[in-house]
């Protein structure tokens, strides 16, 4: 099958980029003809490894000096006319990308086109020919978009062949918005790529958390909750992995709460698997998530998890009391209580961890690949009948 994935910038770092590259890699490894089209190119090589069987193409190459490309530079400085200003990455797009994307979409003839963010999904709906199977991916969730953007989605997504969400809860929102459209709606979560995931040290005394140090990830809430844990269990430690602009304020919070012997901002790591394996439990304290992939990664080590039941992802991933504990979002007291329950009950840690390791097998990349293949095949057959 000829599969084309259109992404804003395959050369950056981020959750969507990593996920899309994982997808193209697994599709290319199973004999599909896969092309990864990056709207922008800012570096010579992608930051995540791309399978050599994936063909790469760039629409707007931003490398090289400006004086050598005066027309390109002039277009780059003009704001986009096609991307809604309420799109989170509106400022990244411009008149040059408008031109290049539309030209690319109009050039297509058949095959499957997967687009990976609202701006690109909208442009695919508007400009890709009818004989292309057009699939729009949602990597956050519908309610995370501004009302003006949701209105654009309601207007244009009915022209897509499929919209794919990461969670059933989000898919329900899309179903309500796109009621009556012929667009196929599907939930396909992110897949867990094969990796060496050593079993976690459940009899240790380390609590692990990981994510960018931003307000979204709620590490301020976690540190406050952990302060109450330490008051009762002074031999436990908290390790938070990741970098980000909240580093200074989180460090000041740790100092102010006198947690400098107990809570550590570990910085970014290239071996998260090794660090997760040192934990006796994992905590997700996010205010919101697109999906919460790191929960699945933690559970694959057999780590019991405590997670805020925030939108979106944790409730899909964790079954409360069976393979982890869910607590009301942003409820610091409940987070403290759940951590204390796991600290006080080693056998519960083992039971939840064992169940977690088994339950996240449903996210194995092979199964996720099959879900994508099934969807593409059905859409193809439907398109052939219609054509």
């Amino acid at each position: 099958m000829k599969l084309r994935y259109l992404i804003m910038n395959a050369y950056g770092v981020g959750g969507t980029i990593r996920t899309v590259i994982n997808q193209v890699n697994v599709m290319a490894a199973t004999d599909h003809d896969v092309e990864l089209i990056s709207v922008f190119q800012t570096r010579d090589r992608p930051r995540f490894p791309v399978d050599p069987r994936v063909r790469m193409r760039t629409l707007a190459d931003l490398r090289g000096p400006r004086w050598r490309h005066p027309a390109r530079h002039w277009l780059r400085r003009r704001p986009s006319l096609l991307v809604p200003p309420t799109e989170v990455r509106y400022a990244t797009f411009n008149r040059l990308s408008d031109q290049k994307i539309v030209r690319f979409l109009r050039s297509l003839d058949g095959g499957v086109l997967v687009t990976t963010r609202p701006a690109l999904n909208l442009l695919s709906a508007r400009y890709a020919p009818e004989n292309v199977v057009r699939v729009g991916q949602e990597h956050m969730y519908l309610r995370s978009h501004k009302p003006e953007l949701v209105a654009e989605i309601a207007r244009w997504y009915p022209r897509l062949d499929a919209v794919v969400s990461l969670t059933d809860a989000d898919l329900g929102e899309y179903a309500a918005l796109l009621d009556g459209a012929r667009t196929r709606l599907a939930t396909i979560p992110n897949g867990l790529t094969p990796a060496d995931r050593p079993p976690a040290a459940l009899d240790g005394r380390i609590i692990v958390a990981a994510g960018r140090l931003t307000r979204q990830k709620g590490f301020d809430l976690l540190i406050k909750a952990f302060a109450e844990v330490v008051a009762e269990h002074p031999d436990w430690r908290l390790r938070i992995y990741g970098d980000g602009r909240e580093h200074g304020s989180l460090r000041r919070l740790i100092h102010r709460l006198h947690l400098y012997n107990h809570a550590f901002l570990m910085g970014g790591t290239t071996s998260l698997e090794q660090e997760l394996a040192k934990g006796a439990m994992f905590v997700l304290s996010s205010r919101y998530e697109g999906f919460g992939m790191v929960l699945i990664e933690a559970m694959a080590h057999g780590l019991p998890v405590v997670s805020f039941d925030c939108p979106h992802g944790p409730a899909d991933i964790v079954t409360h009391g069976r393979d982890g504990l869910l607590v009301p979002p942003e409820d610091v007291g409940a987070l403290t209580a759940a951590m204390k329950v796991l600290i006080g009950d080693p056998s519960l840690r083992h039971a939840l961890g064992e169940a977690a390791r088994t339950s996240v097998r449903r996210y194995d990349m092979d199964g996720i690949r099959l879900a994508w293949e099934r969807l593409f095949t059905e859409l193809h057959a439907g398109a052939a009948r219609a054509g």
Partner: protein
Amino acid sequence: MTSRHAEVEQVWPRDGRVLVMGRIVGAAPAPPPGTTAILTLTNRDRPGLVLSCPATVDGDRFEAAFPVELVVSAVASRRIDGRQVWDLHLTLPGDPEPLRLGRHLDDISDKKKVMTFPAQTGEAPTGAVSVKPYYTVMQNLSLISRPVHA
């Protein structure tokens, strides 16, 4: 890392004091219970300038606390200006070789960035001075004192 050192486990810079707790690693015979040892703060630029306070040793455990005033008054009385580094050692009775304080027996390699401590400020006639424990790139425990400019 030396074969013998004082392994730091907790540092508590609060309430105007710095409390250090840990255990002695690799020392020959353990001193008798309740032994009084000495914690020293050696000025890195002036090796002759050494501040000290008593430390208790019990088995292989040690504990010592000093007021930040100890450092503040030393800096103020000698009219030392600018940033000063002080290296911490533990001297056991009857042992001529002081043990460097450090933290080497865990898996955290970048302590200077990961294990950080708040500064405390002491007042001196010449102005306020802040005192902050920190781990060096060699994972040893030192202090930084510096004048606080209003």
